[in-house]
């Protein structure tokens, strides 16, 4: 696989049109299963094909059970300067229920090891809205704050149809929590973390000052990005392409010197909609000036009464020509985004 990825890097070296690269992210699946050698080769491959800045943010997504002191030291020596730990919860019953390999103690120990090894930028993934009785969000938040990660990403558990949970849901053994419960939990997360100095800089991301993820922000500001490996997505401003989500097909294609991706051309309205959707999610807000300048889209003119209603009902405020959602608005950001979307007939 590493060989194939290296080959893909070489094939795609012009994709980002010579732009400076200031973030690399090993994520999706379980990249912490890669060996030091493999990570090294991939990073070298990137360095010899792209211009990477000195202070680039290089993140590795890791499961707590994959890390030990020596591996952490190796990661540091490779230049990886940010960890994203898939903790999910500190509740052992829930971890078992979700088929996670690690346990509460392991997660806490792993975090402390990473800190003592020298990682000064650690993110933690937390899940909420778990529909089983022993789940305790307040407890998760308390431990999180004790450990004090630099960055926290929170996700509401979603039950996908093609999964074990989806199956249980169909059989009536499981029910998603209500909107009211989900809203209450999300609000608890926001208020608890904000109280401790975390900025809620995007719907599902919180960071201490200066620790916002460069990488994530790129996605929301329509920066170009290149995704490598099976099912990875790339974006160059006008189109998004995605590699085949099948390891064997990916390997076979790359070996034959073919890029196994599909391409999606983004129309003007697609691009505007993505700007609306991602912009509304961030604390910086949706920049109306940017839409006007880049797409000649005057949202004030097209959606004036709706925007006014958002403000009157305290779902949003407008500051320096940016629409910024209030906490109440953030809870229904998808609805507001869809309402503001441009739809071609």
């Amino acid at each position: 696989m590493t060989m194939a990825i290296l080959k893909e890097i070489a094939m795609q070296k012009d994709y980002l049109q010579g732009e400076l690269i200031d973030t690399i992210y090993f994520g999706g699946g379980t990249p912490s299963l890669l060996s030091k050698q493999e990570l090294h080769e991939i990073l070298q491959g990137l360095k010899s094909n792209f211009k990477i800045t000195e202070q680039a943010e290089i993140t590795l997504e890791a499961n707590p059970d994959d890390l030990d002191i020596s591996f952490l030291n190796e990661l540091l020596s490779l230049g990886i300067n940010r960890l994203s730990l898939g903790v999910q919860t500190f509740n052992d019953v829930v971890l078992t229920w979700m088929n996670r390999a690690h346990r509460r103690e392991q997660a806490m120990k792993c975090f402390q090891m990473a800190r003592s090894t020298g990682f000064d930028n650690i993110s933690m993934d937390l899940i909420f809205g778990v529909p089983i009785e022993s789940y305790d969000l307040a407890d998760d938040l308390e431990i999180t704050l004790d450990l004090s990660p630099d960055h926290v990403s929170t996700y509401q558990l979603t039950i996908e149809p093609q999964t074990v949970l989806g199956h249980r849901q169909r059989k009536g053994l499981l029910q998603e929590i209500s909107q009211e419960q989900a809203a209450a939990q999300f609000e608890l997360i926001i208020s608890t973390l904000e109280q401790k100095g975390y900025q809620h800089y995007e719907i599902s991301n919180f960071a201490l000052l200066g620790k916002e993820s460069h990488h994530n922000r790129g996605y929301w500001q329509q920066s170009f990005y290149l995704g490598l490996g099976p099912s990875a997505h790339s974006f160059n401003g006008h189109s998004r392409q995605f590699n085949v989500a099948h390891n064997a097909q990916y390997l076979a294609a790359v070996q034959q010197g073919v890029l196994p991706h599909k391409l999606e051309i983004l129309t003007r309205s697609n691009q505007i909609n993505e700007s609306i959707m991602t912009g509304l999610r961030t604390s910086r807000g949706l920049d109306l000036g940017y839409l006007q300048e880049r797409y000649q889209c005057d949202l004030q003119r097209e959606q004036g009464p709706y925007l006014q209603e958002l403000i009157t009902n305290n779902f949003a405020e407008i500051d320096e020509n940016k629409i910024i959602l209030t906490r109440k608005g953030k809870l229904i950001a998808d609805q507001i985004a869809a309402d503001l979307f441009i739809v071609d007939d």
Partner: protein
Amino acid sequence: MPLILRMENIRNFCIIAHIDHGKSTLADRLLEETDTVSDREMQEQLLDNMDLERERGITIKSHAVQMDYQSSGTAYILNLIDTPGHVDFSYEVSRSIAACEGALLVVDASQGIEAQTISNLYLALEHDLEIIPVLNKIDLPGAMPDEVTDQIVDLIGCDPQEIIRASAKEGIGIQEILEAIVNRIPPPTGDPQAPLQAMIFDSVFNSYRGIEVYFRVFNGTIKSGAQVKFVNTGKTYDADEIGILKLKQEPCDEIQAGNVGYLISGIKVAKEVKVGDTITHVDRPCEALKGFEDVKPMVFAGIYPVETSEYEELRASMEKLQLNDASLVWEPETSAALGFGFRCGFLGMLHMEIVQERLEREFDMTVITTVPSVQFHAIGSDGSITIVNAPSELPEPMQISHVEEPFIRAQIISKAEYIGPIIALCMDKRGVIKNQVYLTSDRVELTFELPLSEIVFDFYDRLKTISRGYASLDYELIGFRKSNMVKLDIMLNGEKVDALSAIVHRDKAHEWGKRLCEKLRQLLPRQMFEIAIQAAIGTKVVARETVRAMRKNVLAKCYGGDITRKRKLLEKQKKGKKRMRQVGNVEIPQEAFMAVLKLD
């Protein structure tokens, strides 16, 4: 070709049977046995050639087919005239029956006699038809031939020996049936030399040739090229082509009294061809035949395009539909909630469903159908009658003396063990029991008088449920009677939704309002603000529900490939929303307008 046979050698007959009792299969066998159709041409259930009919297992449009048959060295012509099998189409059935001298009464040996069969049988007896009882499906393990034979004997007072035991599916008894048709059904009578008198019993729309008119000649002879007149509409046409109805049409020069045929004269509009009308010659006219009726719609509902921009397209589709469905009537209607659409009149609920399905299948239109209603009469203090086909047409209570609604007499036949629940159901539907007759020791016929509006909705389904499918229903209109009817309005955040209004009996208005509000609460998606659902009579609110404001609608994760997925999802949502209707600040999905049909 010995086309002009003597009248003694013609037999005109129809088949009376309940849905699923095997009418179509039997018709197929008769056609095969008489070599009217070859195996190669054989398609299952030949006579029902609309897709919809085949799926529903009922004949919606009746047809006719002519068979040649030899018996003891004599050649006969057998005209089979098909009849529709649903109460919505009872007038058409009566005309088909009037065109015949005999009828096969087909009864499923495992099911016994049903209400629809009995009412059609009575029709046949009224017209003096010779009845040939056929006990079908005797090969089935559940067959109870002796018991059902007793039922038939009780019903028509025939000799048990006269009942033919058959299985259309297995080909049993077919020859015997053909012989009985020839030997037991009388030949037609009439004078081929008299002025032409032929009755239209059906018509079919052909997009190339115009309307094909199916008729039975009672007196006189119709000749190709003659000038003919339809007595009731008063219109005249040239008989461009006449012919007999084999499996395919066979043109011929003339059709004499006693026989059945078709006429093509370039008629474009189905409305001009009325079932039961009389065809005669312009230069030597006759009297109109008795029994003609202008079919009147019984059920009314609004039909609106889902996409408001498709109004003109819907109009064009309705016009085309009307070309071959003369019983469908409509006029433009405007709704504050739904925009431009049509108020349509149907023969019954089945007819309404058929129209809706045909619009969808044949014209690719998606439509919203509003609360079906019957026709009410608002009686003024001076006795004047205002016809009310839509809730919005009901005058304010102060302006009228009272409201009258159509009543029906319903015949229900069921196993005796279900009498209790059936009576309870009919009482609940404001019915009054008029008669109760035991047909056999465990089959009973109940007669009720009921308001038509009460059986429009879920009556039939409930009847079937409480009787485990055994009960069968037939009804006829018996006139208008005074009833305490009120208009019930639905309001969303204080705005009236006209398309959800209904005219209901005062005693039921609370219950109706409560159930409708509950249903709407389930169907209206949560929005950014709370939605108050109210049901009101005039200004008095009789029920209320609330749809709470949306609390959370945001999903986590929005990186890389998530962005495409999420954008597509939201774009789809937005497009779906464009199909919703807005009343005040509330968006209403189309399902909500059909909520009334789904009240349980």
